């Protein structure tokens, strides 16, 4: 039985159809869905897998805050669902999903975009890439708290630094 929580971590495969269903409302004319997936390459090289870990109780709180933040900023929103996967993911697997339903498309897109940017800046989650050459690198993102919760949605490039692990 899937959890009713609007924002949570999971170790199970994320099912986009189920996420979309969970935000369905009779008054909604729009659903925006964002999926983050594991890419087969990065600046570090060919990527085989990515391992995600979190400070789980804090991450769940921050995801819930991100969901409340969306509802506060876009009160017309009828449904919000946020899920982030943990564990070892292969190329193409869904690592994060955000779905927002609302009466009209403009706020659905904006709210969805805001939520994913907040997640990337504010939630204590880390990832390590397993590369084709056998090495592993931590993906170095942003210092937590430097981001969007309580402030405007920050724009940032997708580029992130990586620290090669000592072998």
């Amino acid at each position, binding site marked *: 039985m899937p959890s009713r929580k609007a924002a949570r971590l999971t170790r199970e495969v994320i099912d986009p159809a189920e996420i979309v269903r969970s935000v369905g409302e009779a008054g909604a004319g729009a659903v925006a869905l964002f999926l983050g997936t594991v890419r087969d390459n990065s600046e570090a090289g060919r990527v085989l897998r990515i391992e995600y870990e979190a400070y789980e109780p804090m991450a769940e709180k921050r995801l819930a805050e991100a969901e409340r933040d969306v509802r506060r900023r876009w009160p017309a929103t009828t449904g919000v669902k946020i899920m982030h996967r943990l564990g070892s993911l292969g190329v193409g697997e869904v690592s994060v999903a955000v779905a927002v339903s609302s009466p009209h498309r403009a706020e659905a897109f904006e709210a969805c975009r805001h939520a994913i940017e907040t997640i990337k800046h504010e939630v204590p989650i880390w990832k*390590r890439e397993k590369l084709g050459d056998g090495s592993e690198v931590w993906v170095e993102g942003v210092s937590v708290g430097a981001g969007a919760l309580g402030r405007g949605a920050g724009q940032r490039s997708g580029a992130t630094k990586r620290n090669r692990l000592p072998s």
Partner: protein
Amino acid sequence: MRVVPIRVKVLYFGQAREAAGRAEEDFSLPGAPSVLTLVSRSMKAHQELRRMSSVMRFAVNEEIAGDDDRLADGDVVAFLPPVAGG
């Protein structure tokens, strides 16, 4: 009057866990130490953590904390390297 030491639990995540060589650790500190005092103690024990010190953030009992926040007995302090969700 003697100063009663407090015990705090430290959690290390991601690169900080690798740098510290452990996922958690208990510290005993005198009085009501600041977050910074605890962090200095930890970094003295684990030199590898120092290279991350400028980008690391700290949480006390699952909330982001400032360097000068005071710790109490039983607090849980997490070392949070830059996050990379998504």
